[in-house]
């Protein structure tokens, strides 16, 4: 009972001693989640490495079929969104909520741009018959091209799914900002969503050279 000498804000859950304990628990939880996300994506990177080892020629030719310009543009878009996200988190820590909302909208906008560019790429690939697996009908790749595009679609698709989830999370964060549930004391949610967004960025940082550039 003597622990309660430090005053505790109303938003601290009853089973935590202090705001700090709650914040650090939430932060640790997010980091553990990111840890498992890394392992989740590692499966697809593993498949990429294995088949690159088996079919080096297919991979050489496959990288040439992808649109390097759009990929690089998307990298820039995603990096910029990471910057705006980092600035949004910074503004949360300072308690400047209107700035937070502005930065979050910028991030959402960039995320949408990313998805639009991605879908342009996808529709192009689908149009040319570069579908995964046994749907593959393009004559660009003769040897197991379906496998390359299987991994391409699985990796980028899973990444895009994470982008979409991230956009949803940011929308939720904006709603909470407007309700006044985010402030300089309660910044962990913003920080966690920021961490998630940076992880999405990290995956793309490895994914882009591996799929588009390396020959």
């Amino acid at each position: 009972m003597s622990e309660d000498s430090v005053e505790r804000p109303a938003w601290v859950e009853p089973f935590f001693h202090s705001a700090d304990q709650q914040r650090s628990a939430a932060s640790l939880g997010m980091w553990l989640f990111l840890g498992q996300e890394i392992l989740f994506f590692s499966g697809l990177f593993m498949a990429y490495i294995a088949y690159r080892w088996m079919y080096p020629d297919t991979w050489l030719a496959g990288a040439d079929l992808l649109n390097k310009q759009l990929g690089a543009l998307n990298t820039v878009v995603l990096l910029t969104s990471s910057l705006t996200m980092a600035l949004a988190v910074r503004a949360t820590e300072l308690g400047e909520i209107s700035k937070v909302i502005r930065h979050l909208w910028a991030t959402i906008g960039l995320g949408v741009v990313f998805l639009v560019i991605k879908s342009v790429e996808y529709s192009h690939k689908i149009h040319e018959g570069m579908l995964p697996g046994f749907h593959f009908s393009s004559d660009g790749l003769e040897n197991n091209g379906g496998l390359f595009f299987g991994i391409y679609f699985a990796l980028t698709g899973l990444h895009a799914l994470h982008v979409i989830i991230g956009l949803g999370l940011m929308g939720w964060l904006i709603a909470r900002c407007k309700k006044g549930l985010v402030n300089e004391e309660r910044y962990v949610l913003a920080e966690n969503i920021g961490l998630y967004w940076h992880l999405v960025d990290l995956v793309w940082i490895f994914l882009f050279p591996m799929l588009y550039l390396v020959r």
Partner: protein
Amino acid sequence: MEILLNILVLFGLLSVGLCFIVLLPTVGQVIMAVFATVFTEKAVSNFRGVESGTVQRKASVPVDTPKPEGHVVTPVWVYVVTYLVLLVLTGVTVGVSELGMVQRKAIIAAVIVASMKAGLVIAWFMHVKDGPRMHRLILVTSTFFVLIFVTLTMADLSTRTWGLEEQNLPTIAPS
């Protein structure tokens, strides 16, 4: 012996790449330190119109309030410089791929540049640099498990045909 060499190089590469990721926060720190000396902190902050140095989270917080995990707000210029370096490195990785390197060399170049970029994001955007050590430990552990996964699986794939060539046994792996 060619195949043995290939495997050694592959494993060396994988471990170097993954060790790189493990050391990313430090790499990020070094890169930032270099940039901070090239474009002095002051020049950058003049450009942004933000006072230099770290800003305490909130001025109105009473000074005597104990902050067990002192939460320091990073100034804007750090983020902007990180971002600019990331853009430069993106340019580098695209540029390098235009040099016409294939396979091994291209992979090495790509992994190195990508790891540097990842290092910057992890160290500065994700605050691993000055965050609790546990965050670093989680990253290292996950990366270590990815390393195990890739290395031991590749240990199988890359040696599956060994000793089978002479006997002309059917195999799905390339020779």
